């Protein structure tokens, strides 16, 4: 195949980029949290990711799985609040899904992201539509899996079409259809063969662009929702009209993943 595999350095770079991004957006995250929570989301995540970068520098885990497990454990130990255990669990579950392999494929990354989202859903008992980080994470995980598998997101009503976001093989049912040259852009359906991270990694970058866009759109879609989980839920209908800070930070972290993949 020739696709460039992802090493611990790739995952370390992701966390560094995520830390930069959270630092840059810290005040905005806190402002969003002040509207419907308790005004500490940016501060807490900044502290957690700063500690995570430091822990990676100190311990230098050898495998992608170990990087993510260490990041998750550090977030659980350092952040507090709900976001610490939830993000911590997401990274730990993703890391555990990657196992002990020294290098992993884009498909492994997609499976790991799905495992992370499953962990968050379980711990937080949250579903899509509850106005939480799940609203950004779940569509992103689905978009990544779908993009890598070369699935086409059919519009509603398309005969026999898979549900939007459902991982699927190519339209013709052949998982190894030849590269058709479309490298995708944010929000667009991405066609391509299964695991189609090309030799230069552009396939992965395109798939992660779709994932990041799905997360961004998912975060934005929380604005009209009434919160059903977390502290914002106490506001009931008054939480409508505000973007969820957790979904917003989740979109930032996925955007950082795309940024790193684009230059990998």
């Amino acid at each position, binding site marked *: 195949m020739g696709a460039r595999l992802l090493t611990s350095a790739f995952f370390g770079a992701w966390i560094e980029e995520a830390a930069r991004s959270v630092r840059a957006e810290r005040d905005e995250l806190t402002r969003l949290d002040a509207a419907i929570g308790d005004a500490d989301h940016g501060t807490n995540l900044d502290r957690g990711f700063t500690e995570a970068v430091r822990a990676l520098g100190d311990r230098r885990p050898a495998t992608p799985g170990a990087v993510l497990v260490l990041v998750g454990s550090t977030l659980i130990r350092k952040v*507090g609040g709900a976001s610490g*255990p939830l993000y911590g669990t997401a990274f730990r579950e993703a890391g555990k899904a990657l196992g002990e392999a020294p290098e992993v494929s884009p498909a492994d990354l997609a499976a790991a992201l799905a495992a992370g989202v499953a962990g968050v859903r379980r*711990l937080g008992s949250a579903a899509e539509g509850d106005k939480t980080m799940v609203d950004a994470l779940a569509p992103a995980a689905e978009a990544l899996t779908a993009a890598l598998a070369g699935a086409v997101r059919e519009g509603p009503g398309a005969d026999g079409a898979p549900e939007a976001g459902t991982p699927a093989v190519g339209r013709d049912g052949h998982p190894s259809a030849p590269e058709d040259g479309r490298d995708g852009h944010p929000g667009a359906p991405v066609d391509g063969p299964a695991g189609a991270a090309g030799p230069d990694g552009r396939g992965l970058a395109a798939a992660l662009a779709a994932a990041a866009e799905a997360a961004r759109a998912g975060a934005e879609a929380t604005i009209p929702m009434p919160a059903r989980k977390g502290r914002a839920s106490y506001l009931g209908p008054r939480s409508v009209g505000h973007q969820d800070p957790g979904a917003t930070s989740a979109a930032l972290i996925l955007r950082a993943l795309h940024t790193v993949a684009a230059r990998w």
Partner: protein
Amino acid sequence: MKKLINGAGSVVADALRGIAAAHPGLRVDAENRIVVRAGGPSPGKVGLVSGGGSGHEPLHAGFVGYGMLDAACPGEVFTSPVPDQVIAASAAVHGGAGVLHVVKNYTGDVLNFQLAAELCAEEGMEVTSVLVDDDVAVRDSLHTAGRRGTGATVFVEKIAGALAETGAPLAEVARVAREVNTRSRSFGVALSACTTPASGKPTFELSEAEVELGIGIHGEPGRARAPMRDARELTGVALDAIHEDLPLSGDVLVMVNGMGGTPLIELYVAFAEVAGHLAERGARVARSLVGDYVTSLDMQGFSVTVCLLTDELTRLWDAPVETPALRWGR
């Protein structure tokens, strides 16, 4: 907003140094960020551990001492503690009879205490958790994270602490803690928002003419905004909400709690009205507490917590207690 601090980043650590300096009966473990009774665990006694975000003082560190908590885990301001703190606190107070975690029902507190309890169990400690969720302002628990833990936390910690002091087993201490929670309800009203040291700005805007009904203790807005009214009417709103949820009768334990920025004279004005509202409903103030016990930094406002007493609960409430914030009978 002016704050009496050295820096927003060191508020919790600096306050812990103050607690250590002021209260020789407590041991502050600065590294693990826990406050425990000096003298170590009592063999055969259930250890009581609680914790939560800082900014609610005297909760929880001010309730560590004889007859109440064995340890408290203060998190950052309005941020629940991390599991490492809870594990360190549990290990520090485990005297062989198990540990009771008193957890206020907020998503962050629940998750961090849950992770901690699992890790404590892996280390061979017997841990039981009791959730406090007394806030009637949260109505529809199916569509929220559930009722919040507020003023009843003080009642739970005092009464369960008194029973633990007698050498009662973990299951009994947990039972009485749950019973106090089941028999208690709270409702809070804010006259102003609070200002966290990190943000320096009020957490929400409230005009001179408005109050926020049904607030929690983290500066989060409440159930509804309403026009400002006098103490008689505001306490009436609180008592109506409580009575609607748990009909009030018989002997009750009542706390009129200040949110941090309310003068004591106003809390007594409120208490007089609360006592009147209770009498109208056929309940009798048997025991009472007036003052700042579960605060929200510098918020102006109050909360009312009522517990329907039994003989056992009254006896345990009256039992000796010696902590920085509650002390009698010893």
